[in-house]
């Protein structure tokens, strides 16, 4: 016990009376020690208290989750005989008994309603939507759009989209050219889903770049959402925003919009190589034989990546008009060009396979091995 007292006395002495008399580095060291020790002790306590509170919150959440899930499960198993409004009126009082004045319960109920709504269709989904509206939860979603935090705005947009509050489409349009990329993308996706007339209006005013990731998400939303009025995307192929052109090229291909072909030919001269490559790829995928000549003419002045695209497109079109050209490419010094040309020849069906066997017999050892590679069905291109 005495030794503990003596250590305490020593430390008190060290940090009080003796401190001013130490050299500056020792004084600084002592202050750093004190600071670190206090921070360490506080962090230790904070971590422990945080864990305890987290566990308590989890228990509370589990309890209310059970109650809410039971209520929602009753809706799902309720018969289909009554009309939607009657079912809503039947369940509404039970939901109103929940202490919705407590924010975390309101939040939990909203989350569950949204989740259930996403997983059901038909009358159940209608009832869930009706309850959401009658409980005035939509007002909070709309209010979130006015928040200063982009996360809150996204939450609001997602709720509005999930519950199909189409009247809010115009309200969301303002965020489709936001500086914050995440918010911008959510708003664009929501606008496509909610807008009744001209859901792609945001593309006209898009100044910000639509990142590859956002293009990917938008493509999924546009192609998977039912009842969206699909416009002619060629309208935006001359946009000054390269990312808009890129997205529209993907959509042109997906919807096989043939009217876009002349504009895609113009894109063969686009300075952005990715756009040029995508336009050529589309021509191939759409098997636009009438553009073959343009492809052939452009070939010789292009970098390797574009040359590969041209060869692949000619292979996909497989009209047979350019078999000699493709054969000539099998003597290229570039391995990738040789391989692409042989694959393109293979795509020509029986005539292509005949040519491949001729090339095999007339060719060098390395080209033979590429022909064997191309003909091996187990190896995917």
């Amino acid at each position, binding site marked *: 016990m005495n030794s503990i007292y003596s250590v305490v006395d020593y430390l008190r002495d060290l940090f009080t009376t003796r401190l001013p008399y130490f050299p500056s580095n020792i004084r600084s060291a002592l202050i750093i020690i004190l600071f670190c020790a206090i921070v360490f002790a506080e*962090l230790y306590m904070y971590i422990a208290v945080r864990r305890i509170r987290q566990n308590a919150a989890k228990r509370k959440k589990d309890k209310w989750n059970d109650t809410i899930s039971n209520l929602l499960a009753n809706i799902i198993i309720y018969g289909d005989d009554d009309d939607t409004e009657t079912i809503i009126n039947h369940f509404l009082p039970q939901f109103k008994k929940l202490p919705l004045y407590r924010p975390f319960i309101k939040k939990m109920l909203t989350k569950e309603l949204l989740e259930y709504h996403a997983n059901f269709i038909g009358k159940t989904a209608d009832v869930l939507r009706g309850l959401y509206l009658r409980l005035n939860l939509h007002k909070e979603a709309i209010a979130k759009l006015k928040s200063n935090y982009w996360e809150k705005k996204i939450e609001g947009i997602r709720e509005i989209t999930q519950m199909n509050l189409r009247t809010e489409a115009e309200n969301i349009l303002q965020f489709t050219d936001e500086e914050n990329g995440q918010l911008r993308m959510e708003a664009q996706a929501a606008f496509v889903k909610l807008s009744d007339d001209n859901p792609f209006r945001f593309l006209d005013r898009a100044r910000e770049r639509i990142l590859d*990731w956002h293009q*990917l998400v938008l493509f*999924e939303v546009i192609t998977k959402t039912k009842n969206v009025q699909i416009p002619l995307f060629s309208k935006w192929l001359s946009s000054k925003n390269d990312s808009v052109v890129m997205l529209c090229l993907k959509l042109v291909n997906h919807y096989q919009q043939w009217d876009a072909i002349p504009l895609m030919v113009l894109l063969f001269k686009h300075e952005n190589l990715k756009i040029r490559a995508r336009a050529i790829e589309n021509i191939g995928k759409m098997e636009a034989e009438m553009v073959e000549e343009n492809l052939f003419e452009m070939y010789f002045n292009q970098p390797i990546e574009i040359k590969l695209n041209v060869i692949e497109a000619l292979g996909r079109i497989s009209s047979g008009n350019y078999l000699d050209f493709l054969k000539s490419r099998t003597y290229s010094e570039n391995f990738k060009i040789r*391989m692409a040309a042989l694959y393109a020849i293979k795509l020509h069906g029986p005539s292509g396979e005949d040519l491949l066997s001729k090339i095999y017999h007339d060719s060098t050892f390395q080209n033979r091995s590429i022909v064997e*590679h191309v*003909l*091996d069905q*187990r190896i995917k291109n």
Partner: protein
Amino acid sequence: MSLYYFFFEEFLNNAIFYYALIVMFSYIFLTFLSAVEMKSYLRKNSYVDYKAILVSPHAPSVSILAPAYNEEASIIDNVRSLLSLHYSNFEVIIINDGSSDNSMAVLIEHFGLEKVKFALNEQIKTKPLRGIYKSKDPAFSRLTVVDKDNGGKSDALNMGINVSGKDLILCIDVDCIVEQDAILKMVKPFLDEGKRVIATGGVVRIANSCEVRDGRLISVNMPDKIIPRFQVLEYIRAFLMGRMAWSRLNGLLLISGAMGLFDKEIVIKVGGYNHNTVGEDMELVVRMRRYMHDQDLRYRVVYTPDPLCWTESPSSATILGRQRNRWTRGTMEVLWLHKDLFFNPRYGFLGLLSYPYWFFFEWLAPILEFVGLFCFIIMAIMGYINWEFSLILFSMVYFFAIMLSTIAVLFEEMSYQQYTKGSDLFRLLGMAVLEPIIYHPLTVYWAIRGNIDKLTGKTSWGTMTRTGFKTKIKQAA
């Protein structure tokens, strides 16, 4: 004479103090940056629906390259686990690097492999190819097995790059346990950065004592043994704090060899992995960065803090010592190979901060620590030590170290909270208190040994014996 010692002691005390102060300041700065980066990542990604990448035909294609050397016992589970990853457009390329066991026979039998007539485009020079195999079973059409002469990990990865037919390459250790959504999370930075992303790294976690079944992680536990437990803390600190901060600064020099996703085009342009260093993972990143600078191209190297890869860490001091020895030699080799980067303004941040940081704080720090300790002992023997002052200086470093480790634990708690049991959490906090006095001196010793071995010409990889997850599988079953 005593005046000389007095000045020497003064110099030593001040030198240690100011060096420690600089190191501490840099750590505080990095901690602050990593907190900012982590918060920004979690904020940004809390609204991400990765299903979009999973189903999209426009997601970039990925080749998983996994070199295998004498992995007969676990290779089937590992390959099955890789084939079951959640992604749409990927292939798995296993490179059998001339194994002397039955790895190849086991693979051929289990997956119904047969040799195919593959035309190899040898863009990077490697040891001779023996054959490329594909499965007869369409269920394994994503799998390609490459059999080649032994040439080491770098050579095997280079062969994998030659065989790869995709845009991105995910280089992993075959015995790692990869999270199912790892590719999705690592691919995303390639799609949502304004600049070209040339590489992304995932956080590597310690899997010792975790429950593993069929190559998948079932539950996370704190390691039973103390050596891996120290490494848990060390990895959390290194990945969640250090690398996140460097990612924020776009100054990352190292992406762990256990798991890294690279832009194949750039990897090929720089000539692939370097065969002549044991720090091949770091060397590749440095070379890729240099290339981008030389070409005046804007780029980023990004870290994702999600726990994506679990690895078995060395559980004995001897094996860990060998690993650390190799890491030190690797660092020395990379610093030497790229010595012209040192404070070279032409390379911007890379030359002015990242490289000097590695030089002063990663390579030089253990040496200075050792020299300081050596001088201290000599002076103590000669009776020229002010014990009280020395104790205060040591205490300063000690308390700073435990504070830093506790902040790392807090980061873990506030982000991914992998250790859900309260007991695990407190054991982790306990490690923070013990690490500076038990584990840290050992790492300094191994670093010194690494330096000596490098200077005396040792080049070996250092055998890494793994216990494997077999025992745990039985326990779980």
